């Protein structure tokens, strides 16, 4: 009888822990500090977000990632005393940025203080203050990636190594180097996170193109689909699609606007063989033909934007084809776009097309990727890579003469309950040609019905008129 009673008590305890939300007093400190801050603001958006962030599944997954990595961002940031005035709750705008300039620049080391110039219209943005920004500072999150990545990393990372021509060898799924020691390993990590899931739709992906006078000059819209064929983490079949082991991933697009782009459709295939070039098959509406274009042509801008295929998701370069020297410049706590529970706010403000999104301090690795080919479009890139999610946060592109050419940031959408992470709005400014691209994504991740029919000639045939 006593045994049964003990058993019942144990079951009850287990049930209450796993089913009912954790009480505030039981929350880990990284969750509690966010929740307390949200309550203190009285802002309903923050409070709702904190509830989600502090849900039992979220806490469980957060703890597992913390245990696996051995650290969390909140603790790392807490030790950093840089720029004490930049505190949660502060909203920095082009109107008050002057007051915080000095401290802000400290939070954008290694040449990323263009974010400050962007708001002030100084430095590289002199006479080019056309992407004004409102930075809403929030507390640091302990962030984590998808549960699938965690499990796959635990299972498969031990077999991974860097091979000939710096290629990744022995990878099956997940992060190849969850505890990276070199910049090259960090680059491979981000490369293999691909789209942060097994597949993706962005319906539509809209490119807003802004000229040097700050007005939106063009809008281009495409429908985007992406699918991983190996390294799959949560949508069966896993870890690879049978019969397609030679393919890393495929992406397809169809342009829907404006008229002169409409109907252009393409399927891009990236092969697992590090020496094999991408396949790029297109439907060209003016010719009404399915035609292969050069998969090797990865350096031309996509449509009229400031992005090339090499820049897709910030970095999509094959280092076995375009050899690089990767260097870890350092580690730092920096200011990065944060998780944004609501869509980004765009409005005509401050004489330009202003964006407002959340920012937080993040621990990052600063990685330099220097290209060895003098004919490559860039001389080097420098990235902030997040130490928790392994995702690229901000990026600087330098031309072959060493001039800062393009800059990149984006903010994230995140489901803490399962770790699904995707991006809202890549912001890319070409500082030499004075042109800006803001991509507005409408992403859905990990859909069970995104089949091969979106990634083959049949797809192109179905889009052909």
């Amino acid at each position: 009888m006593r045994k049964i009673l003990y058993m019942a008590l144990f079951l009850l305890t287990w049930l209450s822990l796993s089913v009912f939300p954790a009480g505030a007093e039981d929350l880990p400190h990284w969750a509690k500090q966010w929740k307390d801050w949200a309550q203190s603001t009285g802002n309903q958006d923050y409070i709702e977000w904190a509830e989600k962030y502090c849900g039992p599944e979220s806490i469980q997954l957060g703890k597992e990632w913390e245990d696996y990595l051995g650290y969390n961002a909140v603790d790392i940031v807490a030790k950093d005393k840089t720029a004490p005035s930049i505190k949660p709750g502060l909203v920095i705008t082009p109107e008050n940025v002057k007051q915080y300039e000095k401290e802000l620049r400290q939070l954008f080391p290694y040449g990323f203080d263009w974010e400050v110039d962007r708001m002030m219209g100084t430095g590289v943005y002199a006479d080019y203050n056309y992407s004004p920004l409102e930075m809403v500072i929030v507390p640091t999150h302990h962030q984590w990636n998808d549960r699938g990545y965690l499990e796959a990393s635990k299972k498969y990372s031990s077999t991974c190594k860097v091979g000939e021509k710096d290629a990744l060898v022995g990878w099956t799924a997940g992060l190849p180097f969850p505890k990276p020691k070199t910049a090259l390993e960090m680059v491979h990590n981000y490369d293999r996170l691909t789209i942060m899931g097994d597949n993706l739709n962005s319906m539509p992906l809209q490119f807003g193109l802004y000229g040097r006078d700050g007005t939106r000059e063009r809008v281009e819209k495409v429908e985007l689909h992406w699918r991983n064929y190996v390294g799959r983490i949560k949508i069966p079949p896993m870890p690879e699609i049978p019969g397609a082991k030679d393919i890393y991933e495929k992406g397809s697009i169809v342009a829907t606007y404006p008229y002169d782009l409409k109907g252009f459709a393409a399927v891009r295939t990236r092969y697992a063989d590090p020496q094999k070039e991408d396949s790029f098959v297109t439907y060209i509406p003016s010719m009404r033909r399915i035609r292969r274009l050069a998969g090797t042509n990865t350096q031309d801008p996509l449509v009229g934007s400031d992005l090339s295929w090499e820049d897709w998701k910030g970095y999509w370069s094959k280092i076995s084809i375009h050899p690089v020297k990767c260097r870890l410049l350092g580690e730092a706590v920096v200011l990065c776009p944060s998780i944004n529970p609501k869509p980004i706010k765009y409005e005509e403000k401050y004489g330009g097309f202003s964006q407002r999104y959340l920012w937080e301090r993040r621990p990052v690795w600063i990685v330099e990727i220097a290209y060895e080919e003098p004919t490559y479009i860039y001389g080097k890139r420098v990235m902030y890579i997040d130490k928790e999610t392994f995702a690229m946060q901000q990026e600087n592109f330098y031309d072959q003469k060493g001039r800062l050419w393009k800059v990149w940031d984006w903010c994230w959408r995140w489901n803490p309950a399962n770790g699904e992470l995707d991006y809202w709005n890549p912001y890319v400014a070409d500082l030499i040609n004075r042109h800006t691209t803001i991509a507005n994504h409408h992403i859905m991740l990990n859909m069970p019905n995104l089949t091969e029919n979106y990634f083959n000639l049949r797809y192109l045939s179905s889009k052909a008129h």
Partner: protein
Amino acid sequence: MKTCKYVFIRCLVILAASLAFQSSALAAEFDIAGRPFFINGFIMQEGTLGVDNSRFHGRNMTAYSTLQLEWEFKLNQHISLYGINRLFGDQAYNLHHNRHWYQRANHTKAQETNARERMEWEWNNYDEGWEVFREIYVDIFTESFQFRIGKQQVIWGESDGLRLMDCINPQDLRYEFNLRDSDEGYEYTRIPLWLIKATYFPKWEPLGIRDLQFEFIINPGKTKINRLELYESEGGVWATETPNLPTGVRVSVDDKTHKTSLDKTEFAFRIMGDYDGWLFTLNAYYGYQQENTGILVPTGPGVGAPWDGAFLTLNFDKKFYHRKLVGFTLNKELTAIRLRKTTSPVLRVEALYEFDKPFCYEGEHVGDMAWTGLNPAYSQARKFKDQIRIMIGYDWQIYLRFLNKRESFFTSAQFFLFYIRGKNGEFVNAPFYFTNKVKGDLLPPLPPSRDRSYIDPWRIHQTQKYFSFLVNTYYDNKRIMPQVLFLCDLNEKAYGVKAKLNLNYGSHWRPEMGVMMWWGDHDTGKSFGLFQKNRQAYIKIKYQF
């Protein structure tokens, strides 16, 4: 019927205007009975100025106006209806017909100047208004099939410019010819046909072939031919000129176009797939010849027409025989070749074997053709020979950073080779036969004269060779695109150049300006020499919505 047509056209214009000027200025998407209906299109005005030619030098040659609406109505996930409505015409006659220079430029031996009035809208005298429905078809998707039924274009092949396997739809060449939209895939000049197209997508991958598909096309008897007016009979600047003939002699050609009939059914079949990066097609076609430089069959001489001063007419029927061909295309990126470690060329190959292709036969020697027109019993006017046509080309995006830091230069070269098997005697492209010199004589040189100063037809060589080269690039975030296209007929030493500049500022306005030039033997209308009279500078202003 006529009233309905004009009501419909007015509706189109009003709809286009309202779409173009709506405040969002984006393509429109409506709900009709809870189902999505998409519509967009453009309005375009073009103008050309004659350059370095005798008749229109410094004057406006053509004034094309286009209004095009493209729409799609999705009934459900499996069925959709697609259409293109187009109003297209040349307003030059309306603009200039009272002007002396225009009347002089358009007046020819065969035609009065007001013939160009017929070019005002493209549906005149031909398709009785259906041209307004440029395309209209229904798409039906199932798990393994796609059916497309209706008036449509089907484009085969890998060649740009010269059409080899692109044989399903004919072309309307009355307004535009080889350089006009050849660099844009003949989108504006191809004539859509009423077709049934079925595509089967099997799930299997035999021999490692991926993306296999089988395409079957039927034209159930409503065949058409290329439209190119001989002897300026509709007066357009793109019509061929009256050939050189002795004083008082003229040629009359009667188009024997097909009548709609089930026994005129055309068939086409294609297999497409990808084998280890080789994108390939295997093609077969059984239908009718479409080329206007086809076969002239003599029907005997007649008396002349008093209005053009002729006393003798040489009558011909233009006949269109069967066309039977098989062929293949290949498309592969040659990654083993890299320019300065950047990009690789993409190989394009297209080859076909045509059975029993008809040719105008001149006899053992040049010199008989003029007299065949007097003899309806002449049975040697045509020969049927097999012909091989091959195109080998590449597309290569090359970085020249000192000229363009951001973008590559797209280069595309093609070499064409046509070979007639078992050719004996002389084959010619009718009807250009005599030189200018013959005009001053009462009679042409009599057989067996081989006087080249009089007789110099556009011969069809056993091996014909052509070459094309295209280069373009973009500046200013793809807002400026310069392009040059060069064409060369290596047999006739004739050349064509189209140089243009596209400006893509904003989402709506798309101006384009350029020049089109030809060099060749204009005297007897050889190859590009046929169009030397049309050297021109042009400008297009397009507003898309």
